[in-house]
């Protein structure tokens, strides 16, 4: 027992030490606050302010609710990371905030945000953040003749659906359309009968232990089903699988569907033939774009749909604004005084209105849900539709 305590102390100390080491590198130039979705008129609400709050919180032993609210307000969109890399000290700001969340949750026991506690419990107990019944996870596939991936079935490609796409009725369209597209291309694919959360959002909320547990379980499941290739429509899981999972390079190929479907078109396995005469624009999901640097494939795919007129929003690719729901914000509304998720999402859809597009495309279930709510909130459902790229592609099959 004493050894375990000592080991934990050592781990905590190492977390605090590594956090402090990163924090002292900050030049305090404030340039990271530029374009931060949660930064308003108060310096404190931007990355530099949060960074300094963590630093002095640790230094002055001020682990308060105010510190927690600041640390958990970040959407982890990494806009600040790009700016810091470009013009300052290249600090891994999102990594710093996630480590601070881990510190607040594990060591100081004041994290996560109250609304997120049940979310973490749900992920642990039921394998998804909403606490939906695990047996209903694959219900969306009923009648679609989608196989379960297993050692016996030995599918070439695993379609990892993700939690939101499995349970949210609006997002289920992504799964249905993608399955339809894959079938049309003759792909030998399957889904996991006992698929569970990738753990990506648990990590965002500072629950690194749960993330590691899920990563281990999922890797084991992939191995048992003989999986060598994963395709997903969830950029958050895609990022975790390809950049955060241990032994991720162990021969397992992970692709977002925008990459895979382009390849299928290149190999003449998939043809988009029907004209879809729509003016569309595209919102880069943070975890697909900035975090995974997949900028061109979604655009290429959109432009391959006959009849589509594609226009860019003023802020796009590396400079794209966030939808506001990353970093665990999907399950909490920040306290009064901090920028609300609706404000962030409405700002983004207003940029889409400026393009005069009829459709705002995205490639992430989180963005899809959030931006749809924002359009509804603005009573502009007749002017702008929010759909996933797969839905537009399905119209063209």
């Amino acid at each position, binding site marked *: 027992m004493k050894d375990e305590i000592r080991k934990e102390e050592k781990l905590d100390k190492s977390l605090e030490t590594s956090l402090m080491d990163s924090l002292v590198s900050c030049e305090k*130039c404030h340039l990271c606050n530029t374009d931060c979705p949660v930064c308003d008129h108060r310096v404190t609400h931007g990355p530099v302010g949060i960074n300094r709050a963590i630093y002095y919180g640790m230094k002055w032993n001020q682990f308060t609710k105010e510190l927690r609210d600041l640390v958990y307000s970040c959407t982890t969109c990494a806009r600040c990371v790009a700016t810091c890399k470009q013009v300052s000290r290249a600090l891994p700001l999102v990594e710093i905030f996630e480590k601070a969340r881990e510190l607040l949750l594990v060591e100081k026991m004041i994290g996560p945000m109250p609304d997120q506690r049940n979310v973490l419990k749900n992920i642990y107990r039921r394998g998804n953040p909403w606490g939906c019944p695990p047996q209903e996870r694959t219900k969306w596939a009923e009648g679609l003749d989608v196989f379960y991936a297993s050692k016996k079935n030995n599918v070439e490609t695993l379609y990892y659906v993700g939690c939101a796409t499995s349970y949210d009725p609006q997002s289920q369209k992504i799964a249905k359309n993608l399955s339809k597209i894959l079938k049309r291309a003759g792909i030998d694919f399957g889904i996991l009968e006992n698929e569970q959360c990738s753990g990506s959002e648990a990590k965002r909320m500072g629950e690194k232990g749960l993330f590691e547990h899920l990563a281990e379980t999922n890797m084991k499941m992939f191995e048992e089903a003989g999986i060598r290739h994963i395709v997903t429509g969830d950029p958050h899981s895609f990022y975790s699988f390809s950049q955060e999972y241990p032994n991720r390079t162990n021969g397992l190929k992970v692709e977002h569907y925008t990459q895979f479907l382009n390849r299928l078109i290149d190999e003449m396995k998939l043809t988009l033939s029907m004209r879809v005469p729509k003016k569309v624009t595209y919102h880069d999901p943070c975890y697909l774009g900035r975090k995974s640097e997949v900028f061109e494939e979604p655009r290429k795919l959109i432009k391959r749909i006959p009849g589509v007129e594609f226009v860019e929003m003023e802020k796009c690719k590396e400079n794209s604004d966030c939808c506001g729901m990353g970093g665990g914000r999907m399950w909490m509304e920040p306290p009064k005084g901090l920028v609300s998720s609706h404000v962030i999402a409405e700002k983004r859809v207003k940029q889409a209105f400026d393009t005069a597009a009829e459709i705002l495309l995205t490639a992430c279930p989180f963005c899809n849900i959030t931006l749809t709510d924002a359009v509804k909130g603005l009573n502009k459902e007749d002017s702008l539709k929010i759909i996933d790229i797969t839905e537009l592609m399905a119209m063209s099959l």
Partner: protein
Amino acid sequence: MNVGQEEMVRSLREMVGEDYVNTDVFERINYADTSLPYDVEEEDLPDVVVHPGNAHEVAEVVKYANREKIPVTTYGSGTSLIFGTKPKHRGITLSTKRLNFFQIEEDFQWFECGAGVTIAHITGELEKRGYCLPINVGSRLQATIGGAVSVNTCGHLMDYIYGKPVSNVLSVEIVLPTGEIIQTGSKSIRRATGWDLMRLFVGAEGILGVITRIRMAFYPKPETVDTVAFFKTAEEIGHAFALMFKKKLPPILDGEFVSEKCCKVGYEAYGLDFPEGAMAVTQSMGRTKEDALNNAKQVADFLRRAGAIESFVLEDAKIRGQVWGVRENAMRWGKEKGLKGYLAIEVNPPLPFLPRAIRELNHITEGRNDLIGGTEAYLYGHIGASSLHCLFAFPYAWSREKMKQVVRDIWNLEKDLNIKYDGVGGDWGQLPYRVPFYREKYGETSYGIIKKVKQLLDPNNILNRGNLEGEE
């Protein structure tokens, strides 16, 4: 100060609304902390941070502070490198960030905006219409126009192209330390001769009033073409630029240089195979791209004749990006040696003294037994504007006292160098840490005049208290 924090907060909330008055410790830390390498202490924090939304609210706050003798420190975005936003006597920190009105009047050829609008926003909006803002500071993404006008800086730009803000600001709205709001200047691009109160406040570093609104002229955006030149030493760059003006070359918009050590770090960071030594980058301008290109070619030819190992026009976008990357890598110098503490200075010698000043600064830490000798110095700057910066990097593990001491030593060194080379603080302003320089260079009579003007307008010394006194 006649009132306590609680009473102060209650009164301020009545003036600007509950959401815009904050006393949370992290808020107060963030509005006290600056890019100084040592940490703030509890006694450095303001009592309250207030975010008024218009000039009338600013006036209410200032009037109240004056009545109750509460110090008020004005805060734009906190990018000041003279650390003027650090409160010296607690009190109220007044953020201008919500003064964000912005309007371009193309027919009048000026824009008008609140003091809290960023330089980047103004630049972006003007560029959409083919105009440019005659200010280009390194911190443009966050720096506010109110801050730039308060210190009268044009940043990296050559002073003789568009002039300092005082030459381009047409009007400022000021809240005086006693709470009255005054308007100055003109709506015409023809500015007033003789007494124009506007000029008193531009460059006053916020000690005479709070600038709440600015009207400023803009210019057609020139086409630009960049040139790079590689020299064996930074000193040779100094010789070349000291000579360039006498050759009556087409004026450049911006001229930057990076010394040998900085180049080495930058080249390694980006994996570049540029010639060993120092590097100069210039930005030539013209009404058309062809004009700019012709002007750039003349600069490239001149720099080659003036001793550059190699010089050429930066027509390849990739190489252009790499060259500017080396210059913009400045914020990371010291990191390669694990040094995380840092402080930069500026020395602005007259042209004939440029080479000598560069040589001295380039070897500034050598042979010293003091704390400066224990730092790593990186020389760079806006050579076209005769502005030399030197960044001193040192271990973050140094104690607070040791850091404070090295900061004082470096400031003192900057003072001595500017006195020796007859320079000034040309980029960042004169207060607060440069007060000893100001007094030594211009004398006590000059310094006394500023104090008298301050006393006349701000009898209770509430605005930016401690800055004119040179307090840290």
